[in-house]
């Protein structure tokens, strides 16, 4: 190898400099810097033929690598959970980044779901308890508990419920909410979910750890305790409500 290099100094130069595109190929032999360069670079690179051969080798090697990786992949996937095979503690085979990432997320999901999931998903409130009072009234029994969990005032939640359901109601002696009309637990749940989306979760970080305050000029603001963002929320509007039941007697 080295003998060849020594003989083919000029030739070896050319491919190099062609690559680097910095200096023209026809450097005089008198130029000391060029000579130095030659000498330095000689051991690294060879003449054109050798270089190509090397390239081919490298290419071949790369292909082989790729093949190896392909063959490895199924094994890697299979043993992820049990921690055997490639995932074993003393295994030394290199693991692909994708697989490592996948492993990280599966582990995270299985061991620390709180960290992995977004805020709204992990956020849980007790299911609303709905009782029927008589024929046309529904009792929402655990509203105070839910409100406590959401850190919202009972009045605000009640107002929202009435506006959404298009009814009215009252609070009875043991702080339960009496809603006019028949409602199932599922329906109340839907409305509550919408309430949480609108007034509880932080839109920026999705955290449910927020506070609802009355800011200046009668607007409500939700302040997030975890990311510090503050946004205004729409006031609860009842909107149009049609007249139900007997019409009031028209005057005259």
């Amino acid at each position: 190898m080295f003998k060849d290099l020594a003989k083919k100094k000029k030739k070896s130069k050319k491919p190099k400099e062609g690559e680097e595109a910095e200096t023209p190929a026809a450097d005089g032999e008198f130029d000391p810097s060029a000579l130095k360069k030659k000498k330095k670079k000689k051991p690294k690179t060879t003449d054109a033929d050798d270089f190509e051969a090397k390239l081919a080798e490298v290419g071949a090697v790369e292909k082989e690598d790729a093949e190896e990786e392909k063959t490895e992949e199924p094994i890697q996937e299979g043993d992820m959970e049990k921690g055997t095979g490639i995932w074993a503690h003393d295994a030394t085979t290199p693991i692909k980044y994708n697989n490592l990432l996948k492993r990280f997320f599966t582990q995270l999901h299985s061991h620390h779901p709180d960290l992995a999931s977004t805020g709204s998903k992990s956020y849980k409130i007790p299911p609303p308890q709905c009782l029927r009072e008589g024929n046309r009234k529904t009792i929402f029994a655990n509203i105070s508990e839910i409100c406590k969990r959401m850190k919202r005032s009972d009045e605000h939640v009640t107002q929202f419920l009435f506006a959404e359901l298009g009814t009215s109601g009252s609070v009875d002696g043991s702080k339960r909410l009496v809603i006019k009309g028949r409602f199932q637990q599922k329906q109340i749940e839907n409305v509550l979910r919408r309430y949480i989306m609108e007034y509880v979760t932080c839109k920026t970080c999705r955290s449910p750890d927020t506070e609802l305050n009355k800011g200046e000029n009668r607007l409500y603001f939700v302040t997030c305790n975890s990311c510090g963002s503050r946004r205004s929320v729409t006031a609860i509007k009842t909107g149009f409500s049609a007249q139900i039941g007997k019409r009031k007697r028209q005057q005259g």
Partner: protein
Amino acid sequence: MSIIENLKDKDPFAEADDDSGEKVHKSQDYIHIRIQQRNGRKTLTTVQGLNNQKFNFDLIIKHFKKKFACNGTIVPESSTHKEVIQLQGDQRKNVYEFLTSKDFLNMDAKTIKVHGF
């Protein structure tokens, strides 16, 4: 200085203000589809916020009545000059589809708010 000048052509705060302003504007012309319970299993659906300058309510009502097999009326709302479409029965889904479908009004789904359970 040069960095600040780079920032000049997009002022982050101005944009945020613009955004929120837009939202406030949008919230005013939301279309609300609501439901009300009547006696027994019966319900009413109300469509509020539809622009009655732009659309012919009579035609819309006619279509609703035919398609959804229900009765309906146009109710003048006392507080605003706008009118409210009132339909018998739970037609929220139907109305929503009517408003958003390409064959009919082709409205943006974001401007429509469906209320109720």
